[in-house]
């Protein structure tokens, strides 16, 4: 009749949250509707999107979506960064390239009201909520896309924050988001902004970049642009004594060129998962592993982010180019599971 007491009140916990929550988001695409197409600058377009199912698609400032367009009967995937502030409309800004298969499709054929699929958001080029110091951001070309999202988000949360932006563009006609930066600067005395026009001044070298950026010791630095420019900025900051641990970079790579893939099934052994999977024609290592239910890391699925990097222990793979894999990673036997397929039986360390 008497309830047992003292009683258990709290459920015991392990060393942290369950491992199941750490899985990457599913590879299921969402359908989005093009609500508006905005001409942003010469050869640059912003697509304002809304999820077709009217459910929110939450994102962090600085993240990207992987866009899947069906062009001539084939899926073309491209990563385009979000250019809106966190909590705002879903907007991605795209540089239209003369030979760009997807960007030409967007510029010429995509219309307001059209529906297509996206994956994500993905990417960790985001604000660190624990960091309250100053921000220094370098955006070159379309690298300004995540930068404007980061700047607007940071200032919305702390209007007095010290934020420095260095914008590198070929010329004024191609410059992105200058009107938005000007509007921000009017209301936020902590925002300073320098623009470099390479058509006039040439490409800035390491010393010049370090001078333009000049981060305080407590600053977090964000770099987004061509690899060579980011390398130069990093070298200049290192020379100036800045701690490289406080630098975040967003890798940018051009779209991969599709190459013929095996037409027969090829066996893959995922050694750490102790699983053997038959890669079907057209599949990547990642596709085959996910189909078998393996918990593999991935994000952009087009060779641009490096999340799906795996080491090939045995066998041959074909990797689509270009991609974001660094020369030293290639030398160490790594490939990108999303963009590689096995051409002979392979064993991977995953």
């Amino acid at each position, binding site marked *: 009749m*008497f*309830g047992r007491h003292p*009683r*258990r009140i*709290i459920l015991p916990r392990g060393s942290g949250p369950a491992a199941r929550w750490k899985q990457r988001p599913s590879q*299921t695409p969402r359908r989005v509707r093009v609500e508006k197409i905005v001409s942003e600058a010469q050869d640059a377009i912003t697509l304002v999107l809304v999820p077709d199912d009217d459910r929110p698609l939450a994102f962090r400032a600085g993240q990207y979506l992987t866009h899947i367009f069906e062009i001539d009967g084939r899926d073309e995937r491209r990563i385009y960064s979000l250019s809106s502030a966190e909590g705002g409309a879903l907007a991605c800004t795209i540089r239209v390239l003369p030979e760009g298969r997807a960007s030409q499709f967007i510029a010429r054929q995509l219309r307001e009201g059209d529906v297509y699929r996206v994956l994500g958001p993905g990417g960790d080029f985001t604000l660190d909520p624990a960091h309250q110091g100053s921000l220094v951001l370098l955006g070159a070309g379309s690298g300004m896309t995540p930068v404007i999202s980061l700047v607007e988000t940071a200032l919305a949360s702390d209007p007095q924050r010290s934020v420095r932006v260095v914008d590198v563009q070929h010329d004024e006609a191609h410059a992105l988001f200058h009107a938005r930066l000007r509007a921000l600067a009017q209301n936020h005395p902590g925002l300073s902004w320098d623009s470099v026009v390479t058509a006039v001044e040439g490409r800035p070298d390491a010393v010049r970049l370090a001078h333009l950026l000049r981060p305080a010791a407590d600053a977090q630095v964000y770099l987004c642009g061509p690899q060579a420019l980011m390398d130069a900025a990093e070298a200049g900051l290192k020379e100036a004594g800045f701690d490289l641990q406080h630098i975040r970079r967003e890798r940018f790579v051009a779209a991969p060129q599709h190459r013929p893939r095996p037409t027969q099934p090829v066996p893959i052994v995922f050694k750490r998962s102790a699983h053997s999977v038959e890669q079907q024609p057209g599949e990547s290592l990642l596709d085959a592993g996910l189909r078998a239910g393996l918990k593999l890391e991935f994000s952009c699925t087009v060779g641009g982010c490096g999340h799906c990097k795996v080491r090939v222990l045995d066998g041959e793979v074909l990797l689509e180019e270009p991609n974001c894999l660094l020369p030293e990673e290639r030398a160490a036997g790594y490939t990108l599971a999303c963009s590689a397929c096995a051409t002979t039986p392979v064993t991977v360390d995953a």
Partner: protein
Amino acid sequence: MSANIVTLPRMLDGLPGKAQNTIYSALDNLRVMTSVGNAKVAATMAPSVFRGLILGVARDGDAVQMPAQHSTHFSLTYGGEFPEMYELYRRAVANQWDGDRDLDWSTDVDPENPERPVMPLDYPPFEGLAAKGIKLTPKEKLRFANDIASWTLSQFMHGEQGALYAAAQVTESVQWMDAKFYGATQVMDEGRHLEVFLRYLDTKLQKTYVCNDNLFVILDDLLTDSRWDVKFLGMQIMVEGLALGAFGTMYNFTREPLLKQLLKYVIQDEARHVHYGVLALREHIGKELSPAEIREREDWAYEVALLMRNRFLSHELYYEWFEGRMSLKDWDEVILNAPSMAAFRHLMFLRLIPNLEYIGLMSDRIKAHYDKAGLTSFLGGKNATELSGEDLIRDIAAYKAPTPH
């Protein structure tokens, strides 16, 4: 004179606090068992009351075995059309959401952020506690409010686990093919609700309370009852009604965006679940049950309604925070009179009473009991067939909880 009359407070006088609480608890449990007027109802509930309140099986071990007594209704001819239910099934299929994809799990939930509190400081009954001599420091108040949030969400999660199994059982037992289609979607819904509450507790609040004894009694009773319509009544009308009251209260109070969005999705699903329950039960009660069977179900619903109204008193929080500082009886009084509890009761009965009326479990006989309990003001309200998920959210948001005084 009263010198020879030994009342409970006098009997407890002079005993140590722990002993007072133990006797109060035991007598209170006994009161639950003896307060049930219908002997048949009391007999069916007794094993669950014994397991939940007396043995306290939910407070120990890793799992509890609940032997199910129902039959699976396997259709051989695939008859039993119910077009309204098929319509509900199609709506459920079209409105599935994804707990991983559609909620922003990267949201930084800081329970101590005064701008986006999970449980604002106007929710806990601080004034009632102060009247009993309990004064908390500002830091303790914040921590206590967070513990209330964890306790409440823990009970939501335990309830969803029960709902998952009950939904699976009623899908087996129900005779209409269209109800089986629909039931399958509800199993998915409940699985997803369990997933999102578990994930929120595990990754954001990082504190989970045990299943409350009284909640356990209701779930145990439902899951072990052999009659499909009692499972339906219990799960789809009573527990879903309780859930709407509780989720709605939390939805109105919380300022934490991830939890608010999560609750919004869950409440919209619950609207369908109750709709399904009333469709099935109105048909069954009106056409299949004898007057005696209807009377028993009326009594059962009434007892469960009172159990839900009077007994979710978060004793786990009392034992964690105030044992030795105030009596369990005083704690019950504080909680029962708390404005947040009034909000919960209002939102629960706002939906529950019209649904009981619609399915035919509100005879004049039982109405008199509800009247005595002060619940007939909700009669004539909109039932689940007249309300969409959006209507529910709108009504919940429009309800203003009484302010503390």
